[in-house]
């Protein structure tokens, strides 16, 4: 602005209205973003003085070195956690397809629709720790319902009784968490978004297709699927972004990140570095790694996603 001028009434009011929210936003969001960026170049245990270490955190995190002639990661634990996080995300397409199928079924004139929707929505509104304890109990090796049903089944089929070490073996721990995730997610937010999208598809399209004698499958594939693709796309992107930042609570309650750290996700690793090991700067550098990954996904989708999605002409 050139010269001095007094704020008019509206401008003054504008600043006043924003002030309380902005102060909080400044102290708890804007400044922390800058601080965490600075922290990622610092080594600090919250007790002694912070030490500037340049790019050390990042070279340790992402770098490799030669050891006995082969290339070894400087921080194998980090890469293991990247692997765990990606592995746990395999279930995302299944979750989305299951939610879509459920939405298609629910989108008809169904009696007791509110009751069904409430039942499927239950895990979403329930305190996550309670859900995790419930599933830890279901997955219990000796006394859990699932293993006891399995033993019963074996008995009926006259095969030797088998129990699955759901949460206690490296091979099963991740699939077990994914199965629980499917149960939680299927009737949650995504299903409701899909229902809204399905209601937005113009009836005339289906009527026209019916006159041409199209089958249910044809109608779904040629009308429903393209028409709801913006929602599918949105849901998928959000799930992937969420996937990179998730998995802490489940693992903390059910497996402690084990066995053999097989369920420690990046989020859990950040918690460990920050809280358990007091590596504040290192934790910040991992958080920034996640941020950059999420940022790239968002930008790529923004830039190129539109071509994959068919927006409505209505």
């Amino acid at each position, binding site marked *: 602005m050139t010269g001095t001028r007094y704020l008019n009434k509206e401008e003054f009011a504008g600043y006043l209205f924003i002030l309380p929210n902005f102060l909080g936003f400044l102290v708890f969001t804007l400044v922390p973003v800058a601080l965490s960026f600075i922290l990622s170049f610092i080594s600090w245990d919250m007790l002694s003085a912070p030490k500037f270490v340049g790019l050390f955190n990042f070279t340790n995190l992402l770098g490799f070195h030669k050891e006995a002639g082969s290339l070894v990661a400087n921080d194998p634990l980090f890469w293991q956690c990247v692997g765990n996080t990606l592995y746990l995300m395999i279930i995302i397409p299944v979750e989305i397809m299951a939610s879509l199928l459920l939405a298609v079924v629910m989108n008809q004139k169904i009696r007791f629709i509110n009751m069904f929707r409430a039942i499927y929505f239950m895990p979403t509104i329930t305190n996550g720790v309670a859900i995790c304890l419930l599933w830890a109990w279901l997955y219990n090796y000796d006394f859990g319902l699932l293993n006891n049903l399995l033993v019963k089944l074996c008995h009926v089929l006259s095969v030797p009784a088998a129990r699955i070490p759901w949460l206690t073996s490296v091979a099963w721990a991740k699939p077990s968490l994914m199965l629980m995730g499917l149960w939680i997610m299927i009737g949650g937010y995504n299903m409701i978004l899909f229902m809204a999208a399905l209601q937005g598809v113009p009836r005339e399209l289906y009527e026209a297709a019916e006159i041409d004698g199209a089958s249910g499958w044809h109608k779904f594939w040629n009308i429903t699927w393209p028409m709801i693709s913006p929602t599918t796309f949105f849901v998928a992107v959000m799930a992937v972004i969420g996937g990179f930042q998730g998995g802490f609570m489940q693992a903390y309650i059910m497996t402690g990140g084990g066995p053999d750290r097989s369920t420690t996700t990046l989020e859990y690793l950040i918690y460990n570095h920050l809280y358990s090991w007091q590596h504040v700067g290192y934790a910040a550098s991992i*958080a920034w790694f996640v941020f950059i990954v999420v940022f790239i996904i968002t930008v790529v989708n923004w830039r190129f996603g539109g071509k994959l999605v068919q927006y409505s002409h209505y």
Partner: protein
Amino acid sequence: MLKNMKPNSVIKKTVSYTLLALGGITMILPFLWMLSTSLKSYSSVFIFNLTDIRWLPNPVYFKNYIDVWKVVPFARFYINSIFVVVCVTFGQVLTSSLAAYAFARLRFPGRDKLFFAYLATMMIPGSVTMIPVFALMRLFGWIDTYKALIIPAIFSAYGTFLLRQFFMTIPRDLEDAAKIDGCSLWGIFWSVILPLSKTALATLTIFISLGNWVSFMWPLLVTNSIEKRTLPVGLAYFQELYQYAQPDWGLLMAGSLITMVPVIIVFLFNQRFFVEGIKLTGMKG
């Protein structure tokens, strides 16, 4: 499964209801098992074997629901959770509706740049800001206080964004009429904008309180003493008591169910707001 859907609507309906019912049973059985376990004594939980999965507890053991309040200070966790949720929700709805009104309606220099900053931060993963805010809490000496549980949680760009989008859809005529009548900007905000935004405010209230009610990592980080724990963290602490032994699952399930009841009641009475809210946020996001 969709392949089997013939134009014949009877078959279609049958398939739909069967699918819904099967899925519904899968959803509800774990909860029933939770209820069943919570009504069994410590010893009877472990009695069943391959020939005996007891769905109906016999005898029904209500004592878990009494004992659970004594084993861990559940009442305290409850009071903490309610206090924190009420403060955070009230603070956030108030500050973000004020800011949203300014962003939506008032003209002042820097408004759009500031709003862009709000938008841009919504993409940042929570852990990026959580780390320095945790350090700030230690610096302020707020660790293990209600302040750490409440104050950082009040300020979110999300609530401001959501309400701003909603306020934009309100027709300006009403405000203009109020202005002609000599209504102040505060008066317009308070007696025109807010009453017209009841649905959006209710939706935001539900989302904030639900999100905060189940919040886990942050309360885990900033509380140390048992007396300051919220329900989710308290429940986790409850489980940790059994680190080296087979937990008393009846007691644990009773405790878990107790934490679930209020939210389920709120949900059943406000299902419409949940559904509308998800559509609103999902579409605009």
